[in-house]
């Protein structure tokens, strides 16, 4: 079973709450949900929609076909009814003028008015849906209790009951039983990962869709006794993070492409002062302001090459909310291990989409600081940039070892961090820093492999396209197509083993990306000279869905 509900209306109509409440009820009933949001860059009005798909099996993508459309306004029906399945239904308020055989209009607004609060209108609808899917009104009431209290809670419970009574059961479900899963989105997963990893300082400047990470961490700052500081701009944000990190804190910032642009110079700084930083870029379509609330995977080559000259760095793209948590924690460890900036590439699709997964295993998170002790560095004057075989120099933090001081310097410097002009020393320092890339390359994870082991067609992708591709590949395999996909998480330094291996087997390589030119394909060509000529690129600001990928691949096979 695999149901798909669309909830559409204008900004400000409370759609997110309806979706969240419904999602919680469904999750607690034992289903996996996939809950994505399509919204405009405005606070009221316009046309937004959420899609809530659920199944007793894990879900990885939204889908096109709809079973239910819940229309908070008439526009929703116009825009989406084409996607409705033959036996699908549209649930609408009885004051709507549109007529269509699939529409069930119900007096949601009237009931809300009767209860005495127009705002409970959404809860009436939730009640109705609960009934249609044979879900539990008790669970719904539990969830409402977490959202509301007092009189408002009473009204909502009443609203739920009245909604529940409005109609009958429509979809015959036998509910599963597993109940302690979590439903989390990408921004929350990154935030939680950062908290688990011991991030004690966060500085950022709001930018959709990266703000969610800051919001999440801020919501826990008091409880954990950590600090989230809103900076005056993104330049300040990353420079504050570097100051905090220099002083010994695990520190992080999050933004989107425009803010990342402003951080570019400080990314170079992180590289040359060898001070760790974790920077989350939640991608949205550009150029410049672009489409603020939509999705893209179009900053790959930008973040790989951001800042003048060359530095060692690591770029991790996130494929799924599940790994987002673990990868964020890993980012902190590797940033400190190599004393480098680590960029986490997320995107709006991943960031705003709630998915149901097994709870994270916090015991798997190890905080590895790689700090040198007094004993490690000995009595001699401390060399912050000691030239070593690995390229990694022992790192201490200021103020902790009486008698030892050090400085970090954005100029090219000697082992003590003091400014130099010598070509020789410059070479040594550049080589020392870049040597770290060789070790990082060993820590880098090969792409995830999906599908056939001896594929004729090899799909190449990265980041959040993983989910849709996973479902598409499963369908293609059912059609007996010899298809495999390599979906990259770590993208820089580029892991090349599997791509070398599979490109030899496959007759055809097709990249699937969320950008105009096929950026990962370019990077693969740059690093391996394996030509990737067929490129499926999507850049309309919307995520790939598995059905779309399935269709497009069928076309080219």
């Amino acid at each position, binding site marked *: 079973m695999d149901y798909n509900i669309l909830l559409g209306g204008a900004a400000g109509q409370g759609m997110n709450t309806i979706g969240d409440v419904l999602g919680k009820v469904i999750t*607690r009933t034992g289903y996996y949900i996939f809950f994505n949001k399509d919204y405009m860059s405005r606070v009221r009005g316009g046309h937004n929609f959420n899609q809530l798909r659920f199944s007793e099996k894990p879900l990885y993508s939204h889908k096109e076909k709809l079973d239910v459309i819940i229309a908070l306004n008439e526009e929703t029906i116009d825009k989406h009814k084409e996607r409705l399945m033959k036996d699908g239904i549209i649930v609408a308020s009885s004051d709507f003028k549109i007529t269509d055989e699939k529409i069930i209009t119900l007096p949601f607004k009237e009931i809300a008015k009767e209860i005495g609060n127009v705002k409970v209108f959404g809860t009436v609808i939730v009640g109705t849906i609960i009934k249609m899917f044979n879900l539990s009104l008790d669970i719904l009431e539990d969830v409402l209790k977490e959202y509301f209290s007092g009189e408002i809670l009473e009204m909502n419970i009443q609203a739920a009951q009245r909604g529940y009574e409005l109609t009958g059961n429509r979809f015959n479900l036998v509910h599963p039983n597993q109940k*302690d*899963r*979590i*439903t*989390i989105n990408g921004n*929350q997963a990154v935030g*939680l990962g950062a*908290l*688990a990893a*011991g991030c*004690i*300082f966060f*500085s950022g400047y709001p930018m959709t869709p990266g703000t969610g990470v800051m919001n999440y961490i801020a919501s*826990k700052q*008091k409880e*954990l*006794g*950590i*600090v989230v*500081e809103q*900076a*005056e*701009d993104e*330049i*300040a944000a990353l*420079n*504050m993070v*570097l*100051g*905090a*990190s*220099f*002083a*010994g*804190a*695990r*520190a992080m910032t999050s933004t989107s492409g425009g803010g990342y642009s402003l951080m570019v110079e400080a990314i170079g*700084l992180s590289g040359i*002062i060898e001070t760790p930083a974790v920077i989350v870029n939640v991608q949205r379509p550009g150029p410049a302001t672009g489409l603020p609330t939509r999705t893209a995977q179009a900053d790959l080559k930008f973040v790989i090459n951001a800042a003048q000259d060359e530095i060692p760095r690591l770029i991790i793209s996130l494929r799924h909310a599940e790994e987002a948590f673990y990868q964020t924690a890993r980012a902190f460890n590797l940033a400190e291990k190599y004393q480098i900036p680590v960029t986490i590439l997320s995107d709006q699709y991943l960031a705003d989409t709630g998915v149901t997964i097994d*709870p*994270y295993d*916090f015991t798997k998170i*190890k*905080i590895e600081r790689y700090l040198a002790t007094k004993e490690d560095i000995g009595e001699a004057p401390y060399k912050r940039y000691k030239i070593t075989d690995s390229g990694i120099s022992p790192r201490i933090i*200021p*103020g*902790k070892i*009486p008698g*030892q*001081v*050090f*400085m*970090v*310097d*954005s*100029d090219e410097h000697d082992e003590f*961090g*003091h*400014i130099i002009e010598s070509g020789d020393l410059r070479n040594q320092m550049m080589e020392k820093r870049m040597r770290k890339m060789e070790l990082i390359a060993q820590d880098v994870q090969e792409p995830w492999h999906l599908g056939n082991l001896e594929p004729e067609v090899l799909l190449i992708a990265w980041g959040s396209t993983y989910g849709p591709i996973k479902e598409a590949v499963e369908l293609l395999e059912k059609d007996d197509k010899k298809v495999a996909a390599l979906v990259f998480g770590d993208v820089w330094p580029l892991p090349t083993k599997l791509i070398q291996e599979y490109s030899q087997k496959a007759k055809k390589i097709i990249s699937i990306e969320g950008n105009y030119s096929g950026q990962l394909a370019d990077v693969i060509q740059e690093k391996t000279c394996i030509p990737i000529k067929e490129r499926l690129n999507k850049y309309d600001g919307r995520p790939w869905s598995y059905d779309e990928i399935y269709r497009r691949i069928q076309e080219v096979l």
Partner: protein
Amino acid sequence: MLNTKFETAKETAWCPGCGDFGILNALKEALNELALNPHEVVICSGIGQAAKVPQYINTNGFNGLHGRALPPATGIKIVNKNLKVIINSGEGDTYGEGGNHFIHTIRRNLDIAHFVHDNQIYGLTKGQASPTTNIGFRTGVQTNGVILEPLNPIALAISMGASFVARSFSGDAEHLKEVMKAAINHKGYALVDILQPCVSFNKINTFKYYKDRVYYLPEEFDRTDREEAFKRSLEWGDRIPLGIFYQVEKTTYIDCIDYLNNGPALVDKELNPMDAEKFMDDFK
């Protein structure tokens, strides 16, 4: 060479006669007299001649990007309140490239001391106008003379609500040292704008130019009167006041956050992944 714990063997790259020497020396003496130890101090700077200070003093240093001395200082102080955080940088660095950080750092009122070497010129890049260059000053870029109204750092800081605002002069070692000590001791953000002759590129605002014009705010001057301070700050030209224009007690950033104020420094916190495990409940 002075005889403090803060000396280094490193040769400076400044021009002989540069006002930066006086500032460096006053800083070392001030730290010494405050009985600070090198490892307890971090000096942050951007890029410029002034910004080389951390290179020439035996403390911890963060010599960051041009214009960006303040944000790292902010990050450092927030996560380790036990460090003495001092910023030394040029007026181009601070009020030009870094102007936005300047105004917002004042708003944060962290307990940091900010020493601006104000030579009214971009020294390191060889003599372009800085935000404080006087009208009419000719340079290779401002070939017809500066036409932008010079920025008045004292007035600006007072308008932004800074809790300690002062001016001193690299040519008066004693005054400078004492103002520096007061700034370091001040609980909160403290700005000292320091007149500093640049012998190579500013042939107008020379040692003599300043010497002829500076006077000291009188003893009876009420440093807690913001309007009076603002009024005084507008004095510039034939007479240039030196001293502390404004000083009041104000809650600092750290004061406002209970667990920072009463707890250990953030960097001394034990990190444990399990502390965050309970937050998963929110997602159930």
